[in-house]
């Protein structure tokens, strides 16, 4: 099986390049994921560098650009990929080495949306009640694993990485706005005001297309806009 893999090592490369790599077909077993192949390639050349951990699509470490589309390597079946399989780092972020990007700008966006529950009431000695219907509002939101597949596939993010907060952070923002236990709605909305942070989303919907957890950041962004509108009238 043939691969074309983005290689860049700042200690000895002046520019990145695509490297042809190959695995003996005998090594490819049915049901194998791309991560399995990358691990085999790394066994051949230990300098090949990428992040990985859980191997089952729950930790969000191994987001990368696979045949032109952002995805998690550990849940991308080899059988569904056209060869040579082209693997690149997620676009729009500085590359540290090979498939590893600097996620700090992405994490900064996350931290910018007050990503925690705010509730000023005295703490009850038991749980705060939440109806199943209210809790259901969080489905499709709390599952985000911060893999950055969505944000780094978003043209609005590529154009305004410092100003637009990107789909992942905005999905998180809605996760708390939608939580019946949260009391910071006004502040959260005020923080998103202005032409860029929220409103740079042009509903291109790449985020929805690539989310490995099947979440819908575009819808979440739409809900925030609706809420803003409702509040301002």
């Amino acid at each position: 099986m043939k691969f074309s893999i983005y290689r860049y090592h700042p200690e000895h490369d002046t520019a990145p390049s695509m490297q042809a790599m190959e695995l003996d077909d005998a090594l490819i077993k049915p049901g194998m994921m791309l991560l399995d192949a990358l691990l085999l390639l790394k066994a051949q050349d230990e300098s090949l560098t990428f992040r990985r951990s859980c191997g089952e699509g729950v930790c969000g470490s191994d987001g990368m650009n696979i045949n032109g589309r952002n995805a998690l390597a550990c849940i991308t079946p080899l059988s569904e990929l056209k060869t040579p399989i082209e693997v690149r780092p997620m676009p729009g972020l500085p590359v540290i080495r090979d498939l590893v990007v600097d996620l700090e700008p992405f994490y900064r966006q996350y931290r910018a949306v007050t990503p925690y529950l705010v509730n000023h009431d005295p703490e009850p000695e038991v749980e705060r009640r939440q109806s199943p219907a209210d809790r259901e509002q969080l489905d499709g939101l709390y599952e985000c694993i911060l893999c950055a597949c969505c944000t780094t596939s978003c043209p609005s993010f590529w154009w305004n990485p410092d100003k637009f907060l990107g789909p992942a952070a905005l999905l998180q923002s809605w996760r708390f706005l939608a939580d019946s236990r949260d009391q910071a709605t006004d502040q959260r909305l005020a923080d998103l005001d202005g032409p860029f942070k929220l409103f740079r989303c042009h509903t291109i919907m790449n985020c929805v297309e690539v989310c490995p957890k099947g979440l819908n950041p575009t819808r979440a962004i739409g809900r925030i806009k609706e809420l803003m509108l409702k509040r301002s009238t």
Partner: protein
Amino acid sequence: MELTRRKFDTLIIGAGGGGLRAALQLASAEAHVAVVSKVFPTRSHTVAAQGGVNAALANVRPDNWHWHMFDTVKGSDYLGDQDAIEYMCRAAPQAVYELEHFGVPFSRLDDGRIYQRQFGGQSMNFGGGQAARTCAAADRTGHAILQSLYQQNIRAKTHFFDEYFAIDLVRDGEGCLLGALVMAIASGELMLIEAKTTLIATGGVGQIFRTNTNALINTGDGMAMALRVGIPLQDMEFFQFHPTGIAGKGMLISEAVRGEGGYLVNAEGERFMERYAPHALDLASRDVVSRAIATEVREGRGCGPRKDHVLLKLDHLDADTVHKRLPGICDMVRTFLGFDPAHTPIPVAPTAHYTMGGIPTNRFGQVVVPEKHGPEEPVPGLYAAGECACVSVHGANRLGGNSLLDIIVFGRAAANHIIEYLRENRYHRPFPDDGLDAPMARLARWEQQGDGETVDALRGELQQVMEADCGVFRTEAVLTDGLRKVSALAERLADVRLRDHSRLFNTARIEAMELENLMDCALATVAAALARQESRGAHTRIDYPKRDDVHWLRHSLYHRANRSVDSKPVRTRPMTVDSFPPKERVY
């Protein structure tokens, strides 16, 4: 290499649930805390916990902490320390309510309270009917808890060193902990973090086995670091094989599947748990169910062309309920097996899952070692919590839903003790000139050039040996052979060479040091398994099929220096209630 030096009140190594719960408590008490993690915090393995966290909230069925305590003691096959178990079970409801206040999106009952499901080994009224004690956020409870804890740490402004790898702890001549040498993975730069207190929260070591449910990062780093500064590991022979990993692949299929009504069948379509656990059936303790599956397979009643697994059925349940209660499981089965488990049974087999053993601690999270004044003397300034620790609440077999509980209860307890310790120890101890010699030597070793074995090949061999010789069923002969093989692999470790000596984001170097850690933990596991001549909990010796409370109601302690195993007594006396004396364990 240049070396940065930083000073903190507390160094926490590991940013899973245990580390983050402790960090939050400490940051809230205005201690100056550094959290070092080799992965971004939300990628820690807590994220993979599915089913839930146990607490006697009694939201669904009658319950109280004393019943939870009984189940945990019984589940531990009486090897758990009953003071720690009492503490954990009493603290559980409050700890879960705190999580809810932190924002964890628990599933809800119609009246708005936290949803609780049934899990294995749970009973009402000291061995009566099935309890429903496991608080759940669908089947993504670990993810939900880890996210919320990280979020609260953002609020509390905890200082994170993300993608820093801890190389070694530093201890002074008097045995006090001084901190650790760590490496920034991205730049390869070294940093010495001096701390008045250090908390190890690095998780388990499932990667010593070939087929496991664990993340690739679960390499026992903290356990091995403890071993290297002279601290023994406790009860390492007790490794939990989860009954339901996806056969041949290892991904975890939560006990919640059986809690929600799923059950196991063999090749004859028989619900075989009826023979092994007539009352609890498929919700017997994990060790019991894993042994039952392994027995069915050994006796030729396994499924599939190789008769090497059994089937987990959910297709008799309402498909909508399955999709709603177990969305993550359904996703995972679709991804890795290509079908919907609501309609097609899942092939499952016992899979290496959880390290019951670890760094010995007391219920305050203090690391305790046999020194001059008895078997449990605290190491000044050193704490451990969670899967890397052995407190010991799980004893010989952990109950499902008790690991998330363990990390939040003892992460918090350790932090509270650290706050006390910091009050009495206001200054950093002097750092000796030779303090960094050992950690630096460990690093320098990997600069050796030339041909040699590869990390990948040696790790593969180690995992194969451990799987073959230290699995569900064990004998003296197989374990002796296993110990010989692992010792030989440990010798060969000296001949392993890195090809890539670059500095920036060199994951090969990290994997090399992880392999060293795996090797030490594997030696501890197989040596302790050979030493224990009885069957208890997850440790099943075919040559010693009975539990032997006369000789072996004791914790084992593995020492790295001479690879020896000795023991210390079990704490059978709880804090306030009567002790649960060992009884025959039936489910």
